[in-house]
C-alpha cells in the first residue's frame, strides 16, 4: 500500500488512494476480523453447544437436572444472590465514602478497590485462605464451607457496585440534597428520598454485572471451597469434575446453562442501562457500565 509505482506521480495518486484504498482495506479487514472471531470464539462455543446435544435433548435435560448438577447450580445461584446483596449494601457505602468524604490516603484506597479485578483469581483464593483458612491467625476457619464461597465471591466482585455508583454520585446535583435539608429533612430521609433513588440505576447495573461474574467463577473457589459434591461444589467446579471423570457431554450441558445465564445477564444489563435512566444520567451510566465490564475480567474468571 505504501509503495507507489515510480511512474505514477505521488501527489495526484495520493488523494485518490486515501479514498479508494480504505474501501478495499475495510473489506479485507472485515474478513480478517470475522475469521479471527470465528476461529477464536465462535467455533469453540459451537463445539460446546454441539457436544451438549450429542445425546439428544433428553440426555441434555437429564444432565442438567441430575441431582449433583442441580445441587451445584442451586448453590451457585444462591451464593451469587447473597453476594450481590452484600455488594449492594457495602458497595454503595464505600462509593459514598470515596466520593463525599475526605480523609488522608483517599487516592490509595480508591486505587485499591480495583485490586480484586487485577489480582489473578487463584491468588485471591490463596490470599483469603491465609487469613480465613485452617491456619487462621485469628481463629476464624471457614475453609471448605459455604461461607468460604460467599467470602471469595464477595472479594472478586467487590469493585462492581462501587465503580458503577461512584460516577452517578459524582454527577448528582447537590442542590437537591441541600433543598431537602433546608426543608427540614434529616440525614436519613435525604438519603432515602433523594440520594438512594438517584443511585439506584448504578446499584442495579453493578449487581447484575457482579451476579454474572459470580455465576462462572472458578479460580478463587478451587482452593477455598473444598469442592465437596452437594455441599460446596459450584457449577464451574462441577463441570471440571465431570470433564475429569469422562462425562464430557454432561459437562457441556451444564456449560450451556451457565453460558446462557451469563449472556442473559449481559443482555439484561445493556437493556437496563438504555431504559433505566434518562438524559445525562443515561450517558454516564452507559459509559460506566462499559468501563466496568471492560475492567472486570483482568484477573481472570467470568
Amino acid at each position, binding site marked *: 500500500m505504501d509503495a507507489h509505482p515510480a511512474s505514477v506521480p505521488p501527489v495526484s495518486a495520493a488523494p485518490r488512494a486515501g479514498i479508494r484504498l480504505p474501501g478495499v482495506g475495510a473489506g479485507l479487514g472485515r474478513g480478517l476480523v470475522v475469521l479471527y472471531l470465528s476461529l477464536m470464539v465462535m467455533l469453540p462455543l459451537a463445539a460446546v453447544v454441539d457436544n451438549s446435544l450429542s445425546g439428544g435433548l433428553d440426555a441434555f435435560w437429564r444432565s442438567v437436572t441430575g441431582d449433583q448438577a442441580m445441587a451445584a447450580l442451586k448453590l451457585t445461584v444462591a451464593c451469587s444472590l447473597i453476594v450481590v446483596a452484600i455488594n449492594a449494601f457495602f458497595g454503595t*457505602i464505600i462509593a459514598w465514602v470515596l466520593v463525599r468524604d475526605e480523609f488522608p490516603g483517599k487516592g490509595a484506597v480508591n486505587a485499591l478497590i480495583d485490586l480484586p479485578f487485577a489480582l489473578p483469581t487463584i*491468588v485471591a483464593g490463596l490470599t483469603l485462605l491465609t487469613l480465613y483458612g485452617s491456619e487462621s491467625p485469628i481463629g476464624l476457619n471457614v475453609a471448605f464451607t459455604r461461607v468460604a464461597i460467599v467470602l471469595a465471591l464477595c472479594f472478586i466482585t467487590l469493585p462492581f457496585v462501587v465503580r458503577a455508583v461512584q460516577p452517578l454520585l459524582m454527577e448528582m446535583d447537590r442542590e437537591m440534597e441541600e433543598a431537602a435539608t433546608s426543608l427540614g429533612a434529616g440525614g436519613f430521609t435525604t438519603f432515602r428520598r433523594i440520594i438512594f433513588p438517584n443511585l439506584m440505576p448504578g446499584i442495579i447495573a453493578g449487581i447484575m454485572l457482579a451476579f454474572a461474574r459470580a455465576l*462462572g467463577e472458578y479460580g478463587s473457589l478451587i482452593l477455598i471451597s473444598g469442592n465437596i459434591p452437594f455441599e460446596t461444589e459450584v457449577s464451574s467446579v462441577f463441570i471440571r469434575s465431570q470433564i475429569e471423570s469422562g462425562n464430557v457431554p454432561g459437562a457441556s450441558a451444564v456449560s450451556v446453562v451457565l453460558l446462557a445465564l451469563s*449472556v442473559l*445477564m449481559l443482555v439484561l444489563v445493556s437493556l437496563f442501562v438504555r431504559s433505566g435512566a434518562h438524559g445525562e444520567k443515561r450517558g454516564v451510566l452507559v459509559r460506566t457500565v462499559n468501563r466496568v465490564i471492560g475492567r472486570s*475480567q483482568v484477573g481472570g474468571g467470568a
Partner: protein
Amino acid sequence: MTPTAPAKWGLRGLAFGYLGLLLLAPVAMIFYKTFEHGLGPPIEAMTSPDAIHAIQLTLLMVAVAVPLNTIFGVGCALLLVRRRWWGNAVIDAIINLPFAISPIVIGLSLLLLYGSGGWFGPSLEEAGVEVLFSWPAMVLASIFVSLPFVVRETVPVLQEIGTEQEQAASTLGANAWQTFWRVTLPAIRWGVAYGVVLTTARVLGEFGAVTIVSGSISGETETLPLFVAKAFEQFDEEAAYAGAIVLALLALTTLLLMSVGGRKAKAQGGPVPITGDAAISTSNTKEGS
C-alpha cells in the same frame, strides 16, 4: 449534604471495616506469610527449575497472545468506529462474550475442538501437531479470555478523537497507511496502551481455561497460576506463597500502570479511563469550591 458526625463515622467505619477485613488484611497476611522467614525461602522457591519454567511459559503466553490481540483489537476498533456495516452490531456483541463466559467453559470448548474426540483433534493428530496438553492450546485459551480488552479500550478513544485530523491528512496527500501511523495511532496510543496492560494482566493470571487444556504437567505445561495451585495442593506452601506474591506484585504494577495511564489519557484530552480517578478529582474540586 453534610451528614451528622456520628453518621459520617458510622459510614466510614463500615466502609473501612469491610475493605480491611475482605481486602487489606488477607493481602497483608499473604505478604507476611511469604516473608515470615526472610527473603531466602521465597527466592529459593522461585528459582527452582519448575518455577523458572512456569515463569518462562507464562511469558510465552504473553508474547504470543498480547501482540495478536492488540493487532486484532486496533483493527477491529477501527472497523467498528470508522466503517458503517450491518455486521458491526454482531461483532460488537461477540466481542463481549469472553467477558461473560466462565473460564472453565472456555477451557472445555477448546478441549472439544482440539481434543482427541474433538472437531479438529483427529486430523491434527494425523498431521502430528500437538495442540492439547501443550502450549498451543494454552495460547489459544489465553487469546480467548483476553480478546476484548484492546477493542473495548480503543473504541471510546477513537469515537472521541473524531475524523477531522484524518480527513485533513488524507486531503494533504497521505494514504490510508500513512494516516493511520502518523495521525490515528498517535492519537489513540494511550487507549491502546491501556488495553495492552489489561490484556497482559489477564493472560498472566489466567487459571480456569488454561488448567483444563494444559494437563498441568510440572516443568512442561505449567504457567505461574497453575504452579501456585499445584504447589498449594502438594502442601508446598512456601512455593505457593512465593508464586502468589510474584503474581500479586504484577497485579499491583497493573493497578499502578492503570492509574498512570488514566491520568495520561486525561491529559491528552481523551476520555478518562478510570472511574475512580475521575470520581476523586471531581469531588475534590467540588469540595474546594
